[in-house]
């Protein structure tokens, strides 16, 4: 009996704190394609980071990854018996730059899948694509455009990052919906409206946490932002 109760949770379908796509949601052929794209972009991200990385940024990358892992554990309530949690891609990219941020997000998602059984191992191909690539790089592109529109990164860092963070959640969930539709798991239009609908609200949480974290860094250690600027200047 005791043994049975210990083994009972094993093999159960998702329950408890589960946040990323499990195996079975996305078709295997699509996952193969996504894995190939992921690995190609990741290789490029490693090369870019390698070329421009300031050695002092290594612990900063580590702390950012650890913080995103921890913050993703905090599921905040949104309307209608639903919760959401941080993605963190725009937060990481605004502080570290887009390529180190992609590596940081990959490390977080890989550890979640391999050690915490959060998100399937094969499905990691989709989770990486949606969050480490589409959410992070797409969100960062929006961040750069907004920062320029608002009068420069130093002046408009926080509002630009907040809006881009909200958009990054929609981008990531939109990609997830497309994959669900292509896989035939559910109707594409149904998946898109449902995913974008829910994540419109979850994105507000993303915007608030991203703004708060960047605001905290700006107040306490604004010089950390210069670390990234110094690297990108050196790389030009």
């Amino acid at each position: 009996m005791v043994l049975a109760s210990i083994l009972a949770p094993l093999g159960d379908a998702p329950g408890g704190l589960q946040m990323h796509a499990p195996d079975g949601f996305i078709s295997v052929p699509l996952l193969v394609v996504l894995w190939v794209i992921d690995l190609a972009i990741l290789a490029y991200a490693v090369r870019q980071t390698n070329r421009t990385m300031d050695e002092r940024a290594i612990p900063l990358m580590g702390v950012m990854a650890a913080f995103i892992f921890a913050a993703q554990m905090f599921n905040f309530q949104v309307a209608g018996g639903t919760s959401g949690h941080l993605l963190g891609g725009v937060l990481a990219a605004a502080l570290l730059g887009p390529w180190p941020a992609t590596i940081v997000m990959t490390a977080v998602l890989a550890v979640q899948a391999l050690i915490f059984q959060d998100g399937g191992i094969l499905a990691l191909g989709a989770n990486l694509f949606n969050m480490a690539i589409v959410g992070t790089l797409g969100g960062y592109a929006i961040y750069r455009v907004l920062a320029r529109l608002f009068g420069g990164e130093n002046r408009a860092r926080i509002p630009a990052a907040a809006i881009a963070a909200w958009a990054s959640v929609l981008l990531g969930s939109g990609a997830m919906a497309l994959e669900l539709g292509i896989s035939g798991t559910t109707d594409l239009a149904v998946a898109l409206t449902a995913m974008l609908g829910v994540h419109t609200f979850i994105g507000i949480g993303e915007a608030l946490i991203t703004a708060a974290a960047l605001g905290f860094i700006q107040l306490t250690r604004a010089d950390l932002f210069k670390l990234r600027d110094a690297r990108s200047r050196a790389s030009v």
Partner: protein
Amino acid sequence: MNETIGKQPVSQSVEPPVEPQGAPPVEPSAQGARGLISRYWWVVGLLITVVVVIFAAAFASSDPDGLERVAEDKGFLDAAQGSSYEIIPGYTVPGIDGTVSTIIAGIIGVAIVFAVVFVLGRIMARRRAGRA
């Protein structure tokens, strides 16, 4: 008059270590407590992260998240396949119950994620140095 003059140096010497804000950029030459904080600021960062873990373990909503909600509503949650192995499933350490289990799981995760990225960064930096 005498009192304020006498007290000022005391309060000044106490203040800097208490206040980590505005510490100078990472400078190996930085001295004293401020220097320690600016050199080992990442330890402060990790401590903040542990606070986030405790907060998350205590206050996180147990409602399904965005994707799980949609999967449930649209009837494809059953398509989910469980993992073929489990190490720390559901952010709870097997054999330990409740919030404490989630806190321990979170701290283990924070340590692993930090170590993975830190070691990766070191390897990359070393390879770059080797090429240069």
